[in-house]
């Protein structure tokens, strides 16, 4: 006897759920609390928001200290690239929702299809980011580079430092989200996630929306605010 759900745990309100296995030795306790799992996920998302919150404080603090350097540095970022990525991520949030809805309506194939599409959007985002960063690094703009140290004013050094940190941390979250999708894909295939028990996929969706949401703040702060 074993339980596979993430939220299998004891609950006092339901003593009927206790189970003893052979020889009264193995303690198994069935309890599902999807609301509780989602609640925990939301709390985790709060911590993610605050993790980025520290960086947003720094961004704002230095923006006040170096308004002109921020302006000049922001001019160098590629708005088209940023806008494409925004579009990609926003659409991926839609396909994520479609995947969850499809699963709830018991069309597993459609659900998997949309999950793969979402994964593809995530990958597109990362590829885009790769080209964007490569271009910057090619121009000698990266943390600790001679170009930044010798020729640029302090505010630009800080701006690009934050640019790499914040978009880097965000891209890291995109990759984590994609890894979670791979697991969801496997779990849907094996039936661990099914039309009756889809809380893991729903939580993965919540995480993906957060990743999307953070980008929606990063895009204007770095690309648009000249």
């Amino acid at each position, binding site marked *: 006897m074993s339980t596979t759900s993430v939220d299998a745990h004891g609950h006092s309100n339901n003593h009927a759920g206790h189970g003893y296995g052979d020889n009264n030795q193995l303690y198994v306790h069935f309890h599902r609390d999807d609301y509780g799992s989602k609640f925990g996920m939301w709390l985790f998302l709060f911590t993610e928001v605050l993790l980025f919150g520290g960086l947003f404080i720094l961004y704002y603090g230095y923006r006040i200290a170096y308004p002109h350097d921020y302006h000049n540095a922001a001019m160098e970022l590629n708005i088209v690239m940023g806008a494409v990525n925004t579009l990609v991520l926003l659409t991926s949030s839609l396909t994520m929702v479609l995947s969850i809805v499809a699963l709830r309506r018991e069309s597993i194939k459609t659900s998997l299809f949309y999950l793969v599409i979402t994964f593809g959007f995530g990958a597109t985002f990362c590829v885009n980011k790769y080209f964007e960063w490569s271009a910057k690094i090619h121009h000698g703009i990266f943390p600790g580079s001679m170009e930044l140290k010798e020729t640029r004013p302090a505010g630009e050094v800080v701006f690009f*430092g934050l640019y790499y940190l914040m978009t880097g*941390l965000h891209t890291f979250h995109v990759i984590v989200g994609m890894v979670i999708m791979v697991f969801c894909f496997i779990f849907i295939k094996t039936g661990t996630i099914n039309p009756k028990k889809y809380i893991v996929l729903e939580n993965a969706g919540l995480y993906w929306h957060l990743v999307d949401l953070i980008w929606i703040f990063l895009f204007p702060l770095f690309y648009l605010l000249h």
Partner: protein
Amino acid sequence: MSMNTTTNKNYTNFFQIKTKHKGLLAWLLTTDHKRIGIMYLVSILSFFLLGLTAAFMMRLEMLTPGQTISFIDAQTYNSFFTLHGMIMVFLFIIPGIPAVFGNFFLPLQIGADDVAFPRINLLSYYLYLAGAFLALYAIIFQTHIDTGWTFYVPYSLRTGTDVTLPLIAAFILGFSSIVTGLNFITTIHRMRIKGMTMFQMPLFSWSLYSTAWIQVLATPIIGITIVLVLLERTYKFGIFDPTMGGDPVLYQHLFWIYSHPAVYIMAIPAFGVISDVVATFSRKSIFGYKVMAYSTMSIAFIGYLVWAHHMFTSGMSDTARTVFSFLTFFVAIPTGVKVFNWVATLWRGTIVMSSPMLMALSAIFLFSIGGLTGLHLGSISTDVHLHDTYFVIAHFHYVIIGGILSMFIAAMHFWFPKMFGRMHNEKVAKVGVVMYFIGANVLYFPMFIMGYMGMPRRYFDYLPEFQIYHVVSTVGSWILITAILLMFTNLLIAIFKGKPAGSNPWGAKTLEWTMPSPPPLLNFIDTPVPSKDPYDYSDHDERIFRDLKNKENIINQENS
């Protein structure tokens, strides 16, 4: 609730229960909140004794001006205070009460079988252990880190000692703390027994609730700050480095946005223990229950907004300093409310002077000294004089040793019979408490005086006129350490030789005392019935309770 103090022998407690794993694995792979609580207790106390040793060595070194002990030179001294600070802050006092007693007693107090996410609970323990060993390995076997536990930039960017590993350790420990907090909030919202509202929870559970919110909302900030220092050291981002345009004061802001609320992560659970202990041994409901719950939450909330009072001398605008000074005074109000309510609970109570109660009373007294001297530091003009002196050390340790460590020890005594099913020797424990009280005062009070006279903190050496205070203080450290070791030994002996405790040796009313001790695996044999008031003593008659307890003792003696 009937006063059922007889021991139920027809059950298997959580120590004896057999699971699919055998031997040590049955502990290491357990998801039982009680076993995880015991594992935390063992690990946390081990690290505490290590931190205590470092403190003892530092005090010994300060006995005379200049170098006192042959193997502690100035650089080693710096490592010792870093070791002491890191161990005591990150490994002992922050996880302390929530990880040990929260894990063990939160589900019991709210009538649940376990926490909301038992496997994540175990994960949090292993994160703690991993962080702890990494930190210890780094501090003891790598180069001796000398930044203090605050890792202030730019020094932490430039020091030749290895700060990378301890920082990674702190990051992992922070994650462990977040996970525990997340688990507790969900548990309290989702696992309370039917019929128990939020405002019918014991105040210890309330304190865990508000602590958990701070853990969830404040810890990520230190996480990102640590990542930034690590990246700054390796890749030169220029975020905190003043030579590249960064601002070290912003590091201090981010650091204290976490580390000041962290002080409340340490303190609020201790307040919760005081509330439970004072109500139990006054045989009376707590005075102003709702106000106590609200004040717990408002300390957590306002405490989030006072961080910059650590930085009055670091370079801030006068407006910022005034605002933060005001908020610092403001957070003292709910704290004061608590102190008054504890004292008011005693009024007309049937006071039972057990060892936890004695410790709680001493804690209220010592904590008040620590709290009120905090106001000297919160007011800008006096802080400029007292900043970075021994006055700060004395204030902080009156709060931590007087208010929090003492309540950790009180909690050990209070809940010991429930955890291990045996009673400790009360007389020895009370002697320990009195020695603890004397030791803490002798150790820390001279620090107020020399701090006021200008003795700076963290210094290896000092002027001869301070020696008398340092000597008194060092003698105090011996008394305090003796008291702590005495109480620990007393409890350790009781685990093996103590008398059977019965389900409710203290006559307490909260739900954790309704089951036999130690608790069975599923906690409650019969579904508990929560009362409207968690400390409902309206049907309590102290004489009947004592008669029952005496009879039970006689039966126990005849059985053994």
